[in-house]
């Protein structure tokens, strides 16, 4: 006969294994879910466009955001993190990304909405982007400082990203470009 401890051991091992298989299964099923996300984001107004004292350009915008992320939800979805980022190019940086607004969608019922927001994080083109010290033969060299005044007349792309955070398993992320916007030539 098997002892009590032996039985307990088998039971625990089997339950843990089963739980693991179920978790893996839930995560695998998620990858069969195709997202057909509809989104529209546009810049309604430039509230402020100025140069900061340190030479960085700073932009405050009002955005109109309408999103339908219902298709991103499955039974294994805990929440969807959605954010709007601007992407632009500067002479020194091949790609700059700055998040303007973000939001946590807790469930499918709240996944379709339209809202008007001012950017939660100011769009600041940072000079300090390039102040990366690096060493060559024990000499610390500071890169030439790129002034953060690259935004005048700059065409920026607005991109909607969403990250599906699962109850368990693999995290899924995706994005779509929603619109582009030309920043005015003159400071306000």
């Amino acid at each position, binding site marked *: 006969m098997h002892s009590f*401890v*032996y039985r307990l*051991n088998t039971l625990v091992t089997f339950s843990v294994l089963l739980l693991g298989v179920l*978790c893996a299964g839930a*995560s695998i099923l998620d990858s069969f879910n195709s997202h057909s996300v509809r989104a529209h984001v546009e810049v309604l107004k430039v509230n402020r466009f100025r140069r900061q004292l340190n030479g960085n350009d700073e932009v405050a915008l009002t955005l109109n955001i309408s999103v339908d992320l219902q298709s991103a939800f499955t039974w294994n979805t*805990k*929440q969807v*993190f959605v*954010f709007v*980022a601007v992407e632009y190019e500067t002479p*020194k*940086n*091949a*790609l*700059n*990304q*700055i*998040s303007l607004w*973000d939001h*946590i969608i*807790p469930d499918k019922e709240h996944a379709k909405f339209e809202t008007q927001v001012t950017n939660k*994080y100011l769009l600041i083109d*940072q000079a*300090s*982007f*390039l*102040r*990366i010290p*690096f060493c060559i033969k024990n000499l610390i060299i500071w*890169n030439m400082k790129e002034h953060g005044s690259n935004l005048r007349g700059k065409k920026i792309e607005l991109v909607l*990203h969403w*990250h599906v*955070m*699962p*109850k*368990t*398993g*693999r*995290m899924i*992320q995706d*994005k779509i470009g929603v619109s582009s916007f030309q920043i005015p030539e003159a400071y306000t």
Partner: protein
Amino acid sequence: MGWVSESMESIRSLQIRQVLTQVVSLGMIVTSALIIWKGLMCVTGSESPVVVVLSGSMEPGFKRGDILFLHMSKDPIRAGEIVVFNVDGREIPIVHRVIKSGKAVAHGEFHFFFSVTVVADQGKRAIFPQVTAEGDNNFGDDRLLYAHGQLWLQQHHIMGRAVGFLPYVGWVTIIMTEKPIIKYILIGALGLLVITSKE
């Protein structure tokens, strides 16, 4: 009490061959755990492929005690990704989301750098002692947290980006770290079990 005396009896009646078998099987358990850990390090490219979330700064996404699987690759870190990073002068790694990133071309080399921050509106501060950390749950960006003079994180600060998630499992390690007595009891009980078990 019968169970205890039975166990003592079985210890007394051990044969040398049995002892050896037990030692070998115990060794197998330890080494296979080590193999799995090192194998994960190879596959993910991260020096710690599995981390336990210790703070509530990324709630409601990640709670204390959840486990994150990390992956490390040469790809640049982009805005929105959740990264685990070390800050110069701090021992405990931090899990946060990237809000700004850039790719600088300098002297023919690429440098990736980014700033991490906030996410949600339900702001709650002070997760780490003495510094202000910013996760999904806090305001502002993480610069206050970085070492003096450090404005951006760079590639070498990164331990990996979070790719997978498993809830609650990390509580085992948290409990064991905070209440060492439980760890010793557990190890003792397991050891006793291995010694006394009759195949």
